[in-house]
């Protein structure tokens, strides 16, 4: 009954338009009162939910992303992507995908990322003659590429939700091949659609331009490399790497590029603070919700329930993927990771599925859920930016959706795709 109450109150409040964090917290309060537990547990577990040391990396990566976006680092990375792939059919669509690979999810929320990056890319694509539905679909699908690339923090969140015992360096390494596969799948899909629709091809700007833009964007690329190498080599922890990323982005944007000063720097800090506060509160509330799930024995019950109906690890993994795709349609990725990891990871472990591999599958499935027709939340944000009806985007998003699903299935079925690189680098 308590489990039903927890999920029912949460779902009702969410559907009533109450923000995710408050819906999670209110559902937890309802169950704490129902179980006659002391209400002080609410504040205690909420504080504990955001108090894990590994979570500190998240606000700092969001801050670094904000500085990159406002200080011109992202702009230069987009320019580099433009010179590399802008001449391929699909032009800015290809640039959009590659840019997401270069600088990852900048804001900490897939929904906010599409608002930030799509807000810049979609109008430009429309201006250059691309149909609005193509511009929207390529932007929301390209956000999937960013899920696994630093400074996107999804893997850190997964590590924390898994109890903090998983190596963040291994998780980052495990995300590289799936991220590259998703990049390839989205670029090929974009190319096919662009060819069919007969979009114009832009001229190759020449190797000199590519070289100049590479030089200009090098500090931004080095930031991602710094994070990877720093953690992998044990020079600093994930949390320290995030702080170094902020200092580095600050030095580059204020001293080298001289693009972020005075009022703009102040505004970047204030915007990052507001965004971070909202996301951290979701994380804290999801921590409270997750604690109640564990208290009510939901993870163990899920393992038992799945054992009764499935006996092969792959069957279980696919069942979890379907559940995640459905949940992802109405929940942003951060709460999805925090709520689903404690429930599904014990199931995965019970069936001998590697937790690193499972984390990559979980994030990909949750991310695809965000663009799943007809109610994927990122899809709605993209359609609003592109000023089209969601139904218009839905009619033509299927190729991107199928391509993303194909990558997900490949990554789920072949664990080597995510586990090979961590093993090589270990």
């Amino acid at each position: 009954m308590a489990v039903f109450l927890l999920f029912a109150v949460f779902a009702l409040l969410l559907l009533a338009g109450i923000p995710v964090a408050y819906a999670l917290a209110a559902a937890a309060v309802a169950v704490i009162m129902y179980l006659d537990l002391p209400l002080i547990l609410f504040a205690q577990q909420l504080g504990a939910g955001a108090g894990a040391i590994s979570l500190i990396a998240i606000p700092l990566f969001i801050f670094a992303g904000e500085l990159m976006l406002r200080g011109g680092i992202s702009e230069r990375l987009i320019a580099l992507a433009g010179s590399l792939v802008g001449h391929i059919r699909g032009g800015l669509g290809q640039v959009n995908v590659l840019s997401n690979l270069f600088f990852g999810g900048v804001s900490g929320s897939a929904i906010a990322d599409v608002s930030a990056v799509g807000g810049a890319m979609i109008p430009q694509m429309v201006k250059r003659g691309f149909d609005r539905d193509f511009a929207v679909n390529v932007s929301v699908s390209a956000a999937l590429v960013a899920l696994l690339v630093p400074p996107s923090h999804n893997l850190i969140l997964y590590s924390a939700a898994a109890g903090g015992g998983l190596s963040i360096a291994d998780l980052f390494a495990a995300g590289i091949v799936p991220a590259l596969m998703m990049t390839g799948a989205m670029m090929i899909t974009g190319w096919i659609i662009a060819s069919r629709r007969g979009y114009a091809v832009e001229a190759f700007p020449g190797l000199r331009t590519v070289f100049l833009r590479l030089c200009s964007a090098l500090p931004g690329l080095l930031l991602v490399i710094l994070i990877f190498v720093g953690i992998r080599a044990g020079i600093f922890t994930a949390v320290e790497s995030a702080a170094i990323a902020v200092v580095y982005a600050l030095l580059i944007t204020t001293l080298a590029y001289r693009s972020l000063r005075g009022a703009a720097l102040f505004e970047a800090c204030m915007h990052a603070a507001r965004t971070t506060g909202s996301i951290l509160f979701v994380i804290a509330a999801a921590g409270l919700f997750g604690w109640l799930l564990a208290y009510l024995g939901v993870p163990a019950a899920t393992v038992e329930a799945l054992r009764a109906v499935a006996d092969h690890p792959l069957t279980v993994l696919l069942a979890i993927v379907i559940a995640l795709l459905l949940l992802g349609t109405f929940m942003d990725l951060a709460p999805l990771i925090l709520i689903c990891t404690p429930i599904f990871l014990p199931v995965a472990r019970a069936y001998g599925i590697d937790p690193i591999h499972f984390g990559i599958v979980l994030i990909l499935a949750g991310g695809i859920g965000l663009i799943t027709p007809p109610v994927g939340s990122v899809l709605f944000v993209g359609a609003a930016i592109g000023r089209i009806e969601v139904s218009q985007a839905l009619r033509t998003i299927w190729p991107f959706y199928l391509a993303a699903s194909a990558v997900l299935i490949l990554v789920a079925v072949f664990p080597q795709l995510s586990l090979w690189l961590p093993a090589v680098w270990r």
Partner: protein
Amino acid sequence: MNTPPIATDALSRQIARLALLATGAAALGLIGMVAAQAWQVLARYALNASPSWTEPLTLVCLSTTLAFGAAAGVHARSHFSFPLLVLLLPPPWQRVLARIAGLVIAAIGLLLAWYASQLAWDGLFIPMAGAPLPQSAAFIPLALGGALMALFALAQLRSTEEKA
């Protein structure tokens, strides 16, 4: 992310100022986290020392950013929600649900303010391991942030009622 609403009357202007202060406090928390962690790296490699205070201080800064940033998010209406079904309802129902949302946020804020204050008071005179701070320092911003969340939610309810 939405931009904060424009204040029209005196009370709304005071609330807007308070929201700006809350955002500023959250930003200071963010800068504090960066400074503490960057110092940890610098001290380890340049001074050959690992200060113990950086981790507890960072957690207090994290709590500050969380609580004040989330409160500012209530004022700016920038918390993530799923308004799809609400938008399909007729306007009178939308107003009812907006009131319920405001009340739920205010109630959560008040609960957080009340119980986080209790936790903060309980550990106020116990020293924190590793840093010269009270053990319950992280709960102080949570209590203040909770109160601000309730205040901003109630102010929004008031403006919704006035518009209706």
